[in-house]
């Protein structure tokens, strides 16, 4: 069954959707959308370094994404606004990454494959990495779920309950780096943030509790992955962007339905 490239692609897409759903909810709730973007952009630099050092691309992307996320976390609250720091770091990392790639003369790499993903080329070992990473992220977030929610609601409240919001933030930062690294092959650097944010945002109107929102976001992400791949197959369109297009259409559709039912009342 895994010998069929479409099956592998769908499994990869669904795996990323599952990791992205709960994480994406926190990204939306904490207004960290741009943070996901910055981490993903940094991953290009990681890929270039990984190719130069001949280590696994997954490891390179993850390490640089993690360094990026930690740097941002460290720098915020030290003089610059969050979005300024992210703007500086994200685009510098992307630029340095692109320049670094050009120095790799001996190796021909298809940059487009990393910018937009190449989900149809996912191998069996890629699947293991994606599902391993996704399981790790979901397990991390489930383990810290209540503490993360409390820290997201209010820092003081979390402290008074004996929690350490800064440590919980670190859990999100690490999860984000892992998700970016496993998702690069599937949707690429430029569209990772979309997989985090769009399903979570689309799920908002349907959910009454945080848990429900994460669950529905997972379902919307999985449906987008499967439908997007099928659409790409039928219409001969690029796979990664097609997945994001389906998610965006679901977002618009659900919002329209929500808006109409609100006005009907």
């Amino acid at each position, binding site marked *: 069954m895994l010998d069929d490239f479409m099956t592998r692609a769908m499994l990869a897409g669904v795996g990323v959707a599952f990791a992205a759903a709960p994480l994406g909810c926190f990204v939306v709730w904490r207004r960290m959308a741009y943070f996901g973007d910055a981490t993903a952009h940094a991953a290009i630099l990681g890929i270039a370094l990984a190719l130069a050092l001949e280590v696994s691309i997954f490891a390179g992307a993850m390490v640089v994404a993690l360094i990026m996320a930690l740097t941002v976390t460290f720098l915020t609250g030290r003089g610059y606004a969050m979005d300024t720091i992210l703007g500086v770091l994200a685009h510098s990392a992307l630029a340095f990454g692109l320049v670094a790639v050009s120095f790799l003369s001996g190796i021909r790499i298809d940059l487009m494959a990393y910018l937009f993903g190449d989900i149809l080329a996912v191998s069996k070992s890629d699947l293991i990495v994606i599902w391993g990473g996704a399981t790790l992220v979901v397990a991390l977030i489930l383990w810290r779920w209540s503490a993360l929610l409390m820290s997201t609601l209010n820092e003081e409240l979390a*402290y008074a309950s004996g929690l350490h919001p800064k440590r919980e933030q670190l859990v999100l930062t690490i999860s984000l780096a892992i998700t970016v690294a496993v998702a690069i092959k599937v949707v690429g650097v430029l569209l990772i943030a979309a997989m985090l944010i769009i399903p979570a945002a689309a799920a908002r109107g349907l959910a009454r*509790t945080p848990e429900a929102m994460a669950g529905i976001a997972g379902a919307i992400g999985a449906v987008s992955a499967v439908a997007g791949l099928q659409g790409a197959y039928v219409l001969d369109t690029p796979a990664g962007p097609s997945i994001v297009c389906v998610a965006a259409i679901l977002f618009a559709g659900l919002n329209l339905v929500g808006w109409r039912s609100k006005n009907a009342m």
Partner: protein
Amino acid sequence: MNLIDVKNLHVAYGANTVLRHVDLHLEQGEIVTIVGPNGSGKTSLLRAIIGATKPVSGDIHLKPGLKIGYVPQRLHIDPTLPITVERFMRLTGGVSKAACRTALETAGVPDLLKRQMTKLSGGQFQRVMLARALINQPDVLLLDEATQGLDQPGSAAFYQQIAQVRQETGCAVLMISHELHVVMSASDRVVCLNGHVCCEGAPAIVASAPEYRALFGTGTGGALALYRHDHDHDHTHSHEAAE
């Protein structure tokens, strides 16, 4: 033994010292109110007590096993975060639905369990926060301007509820308030803070202290003094930026 003992506390953000030489204690069952102008370090003091701000120096001693119920200053929940009152109250583990109901009743807002937090009115929201703080039978309630955004009858009712909770459960209360008229009637002790402790004691004593009058005017603690105090006091801070 005191529930909370703060000795010679210094708190600074970078080069900016907000609290110096602050001593404070809270005994079993008493209601202590911290008053002071904006930027006087009231919130920093509470943050230091709950461990959210690391002091530069000084001692903060909490009675071992002390249970704190914290009611923050107007908490903002992002509208993208769906959460019912029940889910919110049960975030800290080991809380039963029945305990939620009881706490909501004690706080004066029964029947809110299934409502969305973001859809509550200001008064309902603060009472849910109070209910959440009460749910684990705390030894101390910490309130950081918990009535901000409530109208006068609303906040008077809120403080009445606090006094009643203290009577029923015997918990101590440490609160920050801007509302001097309420402070004067509801507190056992008032601490007047402006970077340091200007004066403290029973409400009547504090109200007649010269340091207090320098901060809040010579009125009887009425509503007007509340708005005058920022401008007739020249310690070390400047007001240019605010004007």
